[in-house]
């Protein structure tokens, strides 16, 4: 199954990559692959913006607007005038502002 692809915010700077492979290991959708000891974007459109790759890239070669692709979170963010906030914990005050760049 594929979602809306052309709006994905994932950016990867190959020049900063040291080939550690963490991005490929943590990605749940095989967005990255290792080619000749360098990471490369194999399937950018499959990115769900979970942010795992960016957080685990020691070189800072990856940028993504991480957040939860959840309509009710976006809706509650719209209604409260803030960032999308995932209310699945049942206690919204405990949610950090997910989706902040």
């Amino acid at each position, binding site marked *: 199954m594929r979602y*809306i692809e052309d709006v994905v915010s994932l950016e990867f700077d190959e020049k900063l990559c040291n080939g550690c492979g*963490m991005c490929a290991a943590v990605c749940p959708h095989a967005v990255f692959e290792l080619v000749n000891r360098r990471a490369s974007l194999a399937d950018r459109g499959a990115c769900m913006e979970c*942010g795992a790759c960016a*957080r685990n890239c*020691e070189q800072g070669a990856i940028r993504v607007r991480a957040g939860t*692709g959840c309509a009710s979170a976006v809706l509650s963010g719209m209604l409260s005038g803030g960032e*999308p906030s995932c209310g699945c914990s049942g206690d919204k005050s405990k949610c950090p502002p997910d989706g902040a760049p």
Partner: protein
Amino acid sequence: MTTSTGDGAPTLERVDDPWVDGSLHTDAGDVPRVRTILSASDRLGSMKARWGIGRMDYRVTPGLYATGNPSAESPVLVSANYKMSFDRLRAVLHGRDAWILVLDTDGINVWCAAGKGTFGTDEIVRRVQSAALDRIVSHRTLIVPQLGAPGVSAHGVRRSCGFRVVYGPVRAADLPAFLDAGLKAQPEMRRVKFDLGDRVVLIPVEMVSGGRYALLVAAGLLLLGGLSSGGYSLAGVRTIGLTGAGLVLGAFLCSAVLGPVLLPWLPGRAFSVKGAVLGLVLIGALIAGGGLTDSRLHVAAWVFMVPTIASFIVMNFTGASTYTSLSGVVREMHFAVPAQIAGAVVGFGLWLTGLFVAGGLGL
């Protein structure tokens, strides 16, 4: 009931939990040993949580636990304190000696907690230190579930407490193979899927969370059904009102069940589009099958309202799915929410008009 102690030091009350079977003496204190065979009450608890019953308070006390008879060389597996996450992990460790380090994630599962940051670098470092893990194991490796990675920076953990993070497989079921292969994951173990079974288990909790709003709307239509140009009548409640309530609940239930089940086959990428198509098919089938004997105005009203309801319900399933991005959801809501509001206003307007126009035009 368990209590959170704030620190991860082994505490006496953890020993009283039914899933604990004695304790293990270590240089850094006693560590509770957990059972690796799930009991009937563990299974019942999971089932209840799937239906949203007690789901927000289904947790275990954070801290270090043991399975079997772990030594200083045994692997350390990190988990969340949502009891379903913890149960999945200990069940696959049957017959193995291991340590389980449970983080305090407010009773939220690994992936969601990682998205919120509660399953995160700082919490791992805190738990490693409060459990005095460096005195319990001789190695310096933590096996963290892959879906914890959105909240955890492996290099951050290494810098802060000296432990190396190795990301384990997505599914606990693959953990034995991962451990036996020397902490190597097959590519398949790193992929998140969204199979029929994965989708179906999510239906109950989605139904429970949306159900109260559907009941509210249905009750509203039931009462409004009594309105007419000739005043309020119970006959109207019993006919138009009851039909309206039934259609709202029917549209809700069909969308909440068929949306997730048929997800890959419904056309469109946007969930709101998939839902609208499902709604059109539902109302089309109802009309074609002669199941809707209302006035023409009311039939027209339902042609707008059923797809609108279905679009909204299936759009909300994005939060339960495993592959939707925030950018994509924002994009689809940009066109879907105005369209849904328009559909609801037009549909409800036609329905209200139908109550007052004599015979609802033509019937």
